[in-house]
């Protein structure tokens, strides 16, 4: 026989639903609910409502961010100074160029200014986009999925290490049932080319690992997940290197592979 207990207040009920109660107060409500069908039904309904709310907008998190939001830029004096400096240099270039008839010099200058402007946009979203696009382009490729096949593994490792300017080896995913198909070099940022390794399981399901140096100092991140259509990507940044694993696998499968790659490629 239990003592009659005070009824549950609205606030307490809310805190219970949101998991904000201390264990003993939570227990009290759970006990009460066992003997009170109406309370139990209310709790069930509120929990379902909370979950439905969350689920209803889950997909927004993995939608590609619209360009107009990425374009909102800081009104930076610093940026203006840099543009002004760049323009001054173009002027110098043109003057020198016309004086000495060095047409080439002025053209060369304006190209690097354009690149400098592109490079001011945040690199991480661009990195993830590039990785996903690289998967979308090469994973369905039948005849030339890679530039250098796994038969020439040593040459592949040496070549990509040289071009990316760091030592690396194609990660081994055989324990997960994926064998290396090969790899390729890809254009990405100025002076920051990217490497892509491709893997395949027995059913022909493909995964790609994409990595490059970040174009700007970028804070390190934990594993992050993004889905674009059918393609899922886990990505992370470590010591200014970006890594992305893309494929059309379930999230847990992909995560497992991402962990293995993380262990193997850490600098």
């Amino acid at each position, binding site marked *: 026989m239990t003592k009659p207990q005070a009824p549950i207040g*609205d*606030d307490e*009920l*809310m*805190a219970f*639903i*949101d998991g*904000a109660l201390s264990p003993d107060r939570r227990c009290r409500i759970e006990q009460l609910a066992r003997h009170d069908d*109406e309370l139990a039904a*209310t709790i069930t*309904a*509120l929990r379902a*409502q*909370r979950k*439905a*709310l*969350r*689920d*209803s*907008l*889950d*997909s*927004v*998190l*993995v*939608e590609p*961010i*619209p360009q*107009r*939001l*990425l374009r*909102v*830029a*800081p*009104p*930076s004096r*610093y*940026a203006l100074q840099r543009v002004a400096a760049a323009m001054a240099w173009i002027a110098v270039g043109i003057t020198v160029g016309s004086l000495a008839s060095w047409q080439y010099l002025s053209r060369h200058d304006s190209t690097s200014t354009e690149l400098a402007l592109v490079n*001011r946009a*945040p*690199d*991480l*979203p661009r990195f993830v986009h590039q990785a996903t696009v690289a998967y979308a382009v090469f994973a369905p490729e039948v005849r030339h999925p890679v530039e250098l096949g796994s038969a020439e593994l040593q040459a592949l490792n040496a070549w990509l290490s040289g071009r990316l300017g760091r030592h690396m080896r194609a990660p081994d995913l055989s324990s997960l049932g994926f064998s290396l198909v090969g790899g390729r070099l890809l254009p990405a940022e100025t002076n920051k080319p990217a490497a892509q390794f491709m893997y395949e399981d027995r059913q022909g399901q493909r995964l790609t690992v994409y990595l490059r140096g970040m174009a*700007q*100092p*970028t*804070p390190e991140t934990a594993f992050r997940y993004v*889905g674009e259509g059918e393609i899922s990507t886990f990505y992370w940044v470590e010591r200014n290197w970006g890594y992305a694993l893309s494929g059309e696998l379930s999230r847990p499968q992909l995560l497992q592979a991402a962990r293995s790659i993380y262990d193997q490629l850490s600098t």
Partner: protein
Amino acid sequence: MTLFSHRITEQIPGLRRYARALTGGNRENADDLVQDTLERAYAKWSLFRFGAELRPWLFSIMHNVFVNDVRRMRNRVPVCPIDEAVAIGTPATQENQVQVREILTAVGRLAPEFREVLVLVSIEEFSYAETARILGIPMGTVMSRLFRARTQLRALTGEPSLSDARPGLRLVQSFENRPHD
């Protein structure tokens, strides 16, 4: 500054989700809200204390933008048509999509200040204290609005109210004429 804009960019998906809920699922209106928020954040970034948490700061800016929008619209807060694209990314069954529409439409019908509390707590999972700081209201008000929001939402989605013994639900129609707090 680059670092700062990078950190802001990282917050965009979360801001878009909050905005989507506030606008009852309308993608265009939601992204307008996000864009205004980002512009304000960049304009005010010198006021941001480094080391403080960026996420609540951005959400409080969005709250201010949203409240201004609501005022400007003279309470013509639209019960907007839900964007088809709401369910992109999750291969949803039709039934599932209908549920998604229903619940977002219902959220869009709640009074704006109820909507904000409900979404910050239930979807964005801010604590009651954080929610109170973001909205600039006492924690007790957060709790009471939360209870009322959930009760109203149940009624709007066709569920019986929390208890028949409770006083009948009153749907709050306007931001200015809200009955308490």
